[in-house]
């Protein structure tokens, strides 16, 4: 029940990411939905593991990146993607840095640095605002590893029940 609930919300966040990124709006808004998609997907998989409660999952960090690390060991995903073990491992490895960058866009993990919700002050005491900040990750998402991350986020939502129930 709880994993389904997190998946449902993640899917809606994903739709918002797709909708907003197609608009001429500040990048922070679309990135916010992408970050929330990854966060909720990671937590859906964690809760499905039945070792932590939904309450504990709320406090869990970089769950999606950790999920990606573990899922590279899933032979069923390998079969689904028609990849060899080495291909899947290489595929996942290229996604990990950008997946972590996306997950750390939340204020809770940004440590008073760039995030998609609140203004922050840099070490030179300059205040930045998410709506006018040039997020490097936007450019990374247009390159092959970033595009592959987006494809993977889409895929695990579609194949959630096949892979994880």
């Amino acid at each position, binding site marked *: 029940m709880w994993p389904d609930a997190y998946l449902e919300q993640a899917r809606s966040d994903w739709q918002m990411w797709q909708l907003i990124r197609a608009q001429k709006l500040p990048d922070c808004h679309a990135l916010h939905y992408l970050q929330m998609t990854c966060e909720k997907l990671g937590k859906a998989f964690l809760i499905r593991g039945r070792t932590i409660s939904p309450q504990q999952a709320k406090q*869990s960090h970089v769950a999606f990146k950790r999920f990606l690390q573990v899922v590279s*060991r899933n032979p069923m995903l390998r079969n689904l993607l028609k990849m060899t073990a080495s291909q899947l491992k290489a595929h996942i490895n290229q996604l990990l840095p950008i997946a972590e960058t996306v997950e750390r866009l939340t204020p809770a993990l940004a440590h008073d640095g760039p995030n998609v919700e609140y203004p922050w002050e840099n070490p030179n005491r300059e205040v930045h605002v998410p709506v006018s900040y040039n997020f490097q990750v936007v450019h990374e998402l247009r390159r092959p590893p970033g595009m592959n991350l987006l494809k993977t986020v889409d895929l695990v939502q579609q194949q959630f029940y*096949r892979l994880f129930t």
Partner: protein
Amino acid sequence: MTENHNLEKAVRFLAQDNFAVEDGLERIVWLRHGAGDKIRLIEVNRNGFPVGRIEAFYFAPFEEVPFETYLADVTPEEWQQILSGEIPLPAGWSLEGSKEFLRSDFEVERVA
């Protein structure tokens, strides 16, 4: 072939496969006590991300491993904390009768 034999065969398949895929894995611990026909694994991974507790991910049964699998990645430091009791095992999990696999148990061809 007995259910236990099939379970052990599936665990060995996963362990060998996972050692081949993840070169940071130092050991894989199969927690058998009270697991029934589920597979519970703690994988000690130098490349893991420390979270200070055991958080398992679930894999659905499939052809080669027709059992529900729960896989928790921990760092070597966390593994020591699990052994000392500083990090508790999840409810229903036990190290009693557990079986460890090391990389040297398999002739593993490392995946680049």
